[in-house]
């Protein structure tokens, strides 16, 4: 029973770590806290759901590509200009939250159902120490971890990755040596939103997606990234896994209604007690 809780928790956490990574990527590189990416990702999830009956692969592609495009565009035409004009964190908070509302509204208006579930194929079950776990869930976890590792590798060893690092460490110097920092920002934003979308797709197939999910994924993702220490990817993963387990256990013990209440409560508590993150980071809020 406890093992079941732990495994469920790990999987939840693993899937959560995708929007966390999305947030961390965007914030780490652009320095802009973007609270809309959860909602945008869920929008992508809804989009995927819409086309799912048509063709699974293409549906997923549409969702992810859409999110990438949105992330790219809003960074380019809205967020980077505000940043150049000297926007502060609170301003970005207000603006991105408003953006989130716009997309929530779009979801409300466009999609016929407020709550959906994505029917992705199941791969059979695996038996771990007496507990039966769906193969698909394991796949989700591995995918999330794999993505994290790949992004880290890209950052360290490719030319583009180095430009990213440079831009996040010293924006002014990056421009002076000729890095197209606007492009870097826009791509980072696109990738962040795509990651959130993949996270939403997984979440939607394991559990469900509704209109509020976007805020959950976005805010929780952000908080988890902060708790783990922004810029510290392993910290982010660990705190995502922990958070996943908290969610799983509170769900078992107290019932669904309380699950999100407890979660937000804990998150608020963490923000109050340890704003710099449990594992510390180079770049705190």
């Amino acid at each position, binding site marked *: 029973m406890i093992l079941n809780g732990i495994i469920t928790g790990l999987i939840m956490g693993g899937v959560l770590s995708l929007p966390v990574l999305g947030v961390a990527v965007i914030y780490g590189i652009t320095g802009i806290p973007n609270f809309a990416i959860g909602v945008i990702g869920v929008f992508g999830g809804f989009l995927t759901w819409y086309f799912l009956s048509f063709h699974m692969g293409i549906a997923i592609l549409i969702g992810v590509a859409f999110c990438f495009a949105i992330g790219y565009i809003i960074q380019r035409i809205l967020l980077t200009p505000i940043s150049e004009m000297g926007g502060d964190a609170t301003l970005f908070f207000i603006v991105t939250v408003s953006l989130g509302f716009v997309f929530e509204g779009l979801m409300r208006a466009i999609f016929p159902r407020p709550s959906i579930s994505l029917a992705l194929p199941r791969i059979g079950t695996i038996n771990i120490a007496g507990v039966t776990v769906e193969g698909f869930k394991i796949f989700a976890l591995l995918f999330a971890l794999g993505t994290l590792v790949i992004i880290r590798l890209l950052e360290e060893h490719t030319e583009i990755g*180095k430009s990213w690092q440079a831009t996040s460490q*010293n924006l002014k*110097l990056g421009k002076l*040596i000729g*890095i197209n*920092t606007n492009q870097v920002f826009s791509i980072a934003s696109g990738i962040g939103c795509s990651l959130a979308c993949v996270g939403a797709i997984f979440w939607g197939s394991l559990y469900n997606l509704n209109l509020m999910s976007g805020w959950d994924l976005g805010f929780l993702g952000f908080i988890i990234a902060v708790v783990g220490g922004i810029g510290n990817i392993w910290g982010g993963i660990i705190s995502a896994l922990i958070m996943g387990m908290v969610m799983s256990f509170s769900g078992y013990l107290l019932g669904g209604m309380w699950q999100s209440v407890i979660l937000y409560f804990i998150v608020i508590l963490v923000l109050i007690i340890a704003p710099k993150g449990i594992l510390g980071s180079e770049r705190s809020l």
Partner: protein
Amino acid sequence: MREPILEVSNLTASYGMISALKGIGFSANDKEIVGIVGPNGAGKTTLLECIAGSMHIREGQINFLGHQIERWPVLKRRRLGLMLVPQEGNIFPLMSVKKNLEVSVILSRRSEREELIDRVYKLFPVLWEKRKQIANTLSGGQQKMLAVGIAIASNAKVMLIDEPSIGLAPKLVTKLFETLEKIREDTGKTIVLSEQNIKVLDIADRLFGLEAGEIRFDEKTENLSRDVVKDLYLGAIS
């Protein structure tokens, strides 16, 4: 007569209500080493930042290689061949020396990149020794060298350097200036230095004196005496 490749006219810039540059004129010729000297607060940094594009100007024209660049963004100016080494915040702190240089050659062709980086290592052997070290763990002098190294690797036609000698021991200052002269000889780059250190007279072809946002003199170094420059700092010049 050498042609100016960089020409600034009527430049006015301010920080809010405080006027930093008051309609000044400045120029640098091809393959020249030009010094901008003046006391603290004269506006040297402001001038360089305006030319590089990190700071907005109120009025004035900046002409570089035949283009009017005063409204251009930093990236475009760099692509044209203009680069600034700021006084602070001039390295990528969390990357190794090696990575710092690897990222700086981004605008160059792949075939040239290794050569550019090697050149930096040859000019500053200590950077080769410390190449795997994280940049912000280097000493102040070494960081300065890295900053200049970044500029050299970046291979811009015109290098603007903001007070390169600040915080460096006198021996290092001499070495640095020698290195800058060597770069000019080997590669034909134009270098503009802002300085408070009189030693700049040793390598500069021409000097501009800047004080309280105004140009006080513009002379070939051979026509200037050390005393004139010294007086500038003591405020005796008018």
